[in-house]
């Protein structure tokens, strides 16, 4: 695997073994000194054309724990503001010696376009509404590990609630969850659904109350307030009435059901309950799993065989 641009580039078997590698990385992270020399001498450049705190920090932490050098590029302090093109930016950074680009961009497809202009590996850290493959992997990791076995997603009901249409997280998650055998139910108003869902293998429900009693995972998406101004979208209050997680709805969640959210949370919009008060919340587990999964991705894209890392890890 040279690049990770979309979950759709991964075979199901590759997804499963990536999550297995993440288990090993989680073991590394649990050590007193959570660092292995697996990627020593490699340079990972995080190139974020769009702001992000957690994803960038997660990737940079993952890279450092594998002993890679980290180069940080953010648009606010770069010559992109002087009109430098995407291609020139990537070619310039490549010339400094980069082994992997971790790219976030507000436009769908940019990571795939960048592949043409560099010999380095490209990892998509979120592009437009298109894909956020490491989020999909870390969510699959969180769910399967919470339910206990590698194939524990099969037959589970996962409701994804919110603005599906504009969500890269939803696209990555739906692809992985359905392929791992889950029954995926989308809960959203029409304006938040893409036009053509026929091939997605999902069900659609118009209100959270229709499903909340029988979900194994309740996956709440972040609602961006600015989207609420669009003419075809219900108002914030109407949205909250039907789709927000209220204390009474949270009380109807099954005892083993998980609550997940990709962050950052918009309290008072999609969550009207403190997630700390929901026993099944895995929202912070998602964040810590994110580091292990991104270590697995960086290692798989840049590293050698599995044996080497554990051996090296044991030495350190």
């Amino acid at each position, binding site marked *: 695997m040279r690049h990770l641009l979309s979950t759709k580039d991964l075979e199901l078997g590759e997804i499963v073994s990536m999550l297995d590698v993440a288990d090993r990385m989680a073991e590394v992270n649990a050590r007193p000194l959570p660092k292995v020399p697996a990627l020593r001498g490699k340079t990972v450049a995080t190139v974020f054309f769009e702001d992000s705190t957690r994803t960038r920090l997660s990737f940079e932490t993952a890279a450092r724990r594998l002993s890679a050098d980290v180069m940080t590029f953010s648009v606010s302090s770069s010559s992109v503001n002087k009109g430098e*093109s995407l*291609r020139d930016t990537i070619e310039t950074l490549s010339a400094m010696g980069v082994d992997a680009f971790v790219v976030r961009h507000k*436009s769908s497809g*940019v990571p795939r376009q960048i592949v043409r202009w560099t010999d380095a590996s490209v990892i998509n850290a979120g592009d437009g509404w298109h894909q956020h493959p490491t989020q999909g992997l870390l969510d699959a990791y969180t769910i399967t590990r919470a339910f206990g076995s590698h194939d524990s997603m099969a037959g589970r009901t996962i409701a994804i609630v919110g603005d599906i249409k504009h969500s890269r997280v939803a696209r990555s998650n739906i692809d992985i969850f359905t392929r791992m055998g889950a029954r995926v139910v989308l809960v959203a108003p029409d304006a938040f659904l*893409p036009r053509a869902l026929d091939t997605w293998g999902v069900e659609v429900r118009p209100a959270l109350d229709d499903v909340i009693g029988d979900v194994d995972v309740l996956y709440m998406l972040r609602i961006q307030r600015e989207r609420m101004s669009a003419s075809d979208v219900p108002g914030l209050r109407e949205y909250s009435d039907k789709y927000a997680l209220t204390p009474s709805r949270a009380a109807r969640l099954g005892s083993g059901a998980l609550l997940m959210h990709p962050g950052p949370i918009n309290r008072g919009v999609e969550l009207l309950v403190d997630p700390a008060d929901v026993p099944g919340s895995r929202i912070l587990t998602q964040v810590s799993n994110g580091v292990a999964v991104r270590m697995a991705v960086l290692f798989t894209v840049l590293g050698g065989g599995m044996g080497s890392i554990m051996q090296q890890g044991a030495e350190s």
Partner: protein
Amino acid sequence: MSGRDPSLVIRGASVVNPDAVVKADVLIEGGIISAVGEGLAGDWSIDADGLYLSSGFVDLHTHLREPGREEAETIETGSRAAALGGYTAVVAMPNTDPAQDNVATVDFVREQGLRAGLCDVVPSGCITKGRAGRELVPFDRLGAAGVTLFTDDGNGVQDDMLMRRALVMAARLGLTLAQHCEVSAMTQGAVMHDGQCCSSMGVPGWPAEAEEAMLRRDIELVRQTGAKMHFLHLSTAGSVELVRRAKADGLPITAEVTPHHLSLVDELLSGFDPVFKVNPPLRTPVDIQALKDGLLDGTIDAVATDHAPHPDHAKEEPLDSAPPGMLGLETALAVVNTSVGLGPQGIARVLSWNPARIARIEGAHGGAVAVGRPANLALWDLSTVWTVSRDGLASLSRNTPYHGMEVRGRVHHTVHQGRLVVKEGKALR
């Protein structure tokens, strides 16, 4: 043109005329076809055995980019691309900078075409000043300057009342209005056809109904005003059906389709390559089939290229910000022939005869190859298989969606005003 120009005889071509395809020699003297028959002699000759000879192609929809964006194309380079594509006339779209909403700019475009001397450059005019959709252009003055086709191409005229007024004026002055059908409120930020591919790629969609809604409105306005209207680059199955019914009602409308909407599907965008981004967008196999059927049964009158050059760097932007448009002049014949089984007369009908009538230049272009007609001619075949290369094109830009694709049919020679401007697939000037 002077009588002292050497005479040229084209020997042994299959002459494609509306009534028949007949093998004959054609003699050209002083820019005019002076004889059609057997055993003709001239000062020099072209052996055209095995080739079709028809009136030169006419493109109703060419973006030459001059004035304003000469980095992408100039009238000279665009004219050369046209001649290589078998075109003897192109209608220059008015979205230049400044826009072709005034006589000075229109005259400049025509003059630059004459200087290039490779094909007739026929300027169109805007419907509204600056194509802004607010204030109508001086139709009478532009009409007096020779403009017969008006369009805000790139933008549809959104305002119903303004469009109605424009059609009333056009009817009175005998002008044709051409619409780019797009209800802009339905296509904000749109990147591609709003279908399955778009949904999974996560980009804003351009729904079929945004085209059909404006087309439906305009058909009703034509019904009320009696004005002539031409519909640019129709792209959906629904549009074909709307035009079919309006024509059955006897309305004075014509329609065009591009080679790319006959040949390329929206799925090509799944790699996020902006070279496949175009407006209106590539659509589905169902739409393509309907467009082919419409072209074959005459619902759609003409193939027009919507030749839209863009420099490499513009097509290296992210898909959502890259400009729409693709090259078309040099590949049109081959792509149409590869996509639709039109045969030689069908090809001449949709690439030459009908567009010449729609552009109102049938005095010099289109129609039969016959004695007394101006010698604007194309020689081509429908059998040569070749591979398109973006590096082998005369256009200043390289944004062809057909790079690496195998196509069938080739332009060999083009005669413009009696002069050979393309010989054996090479431009002579």
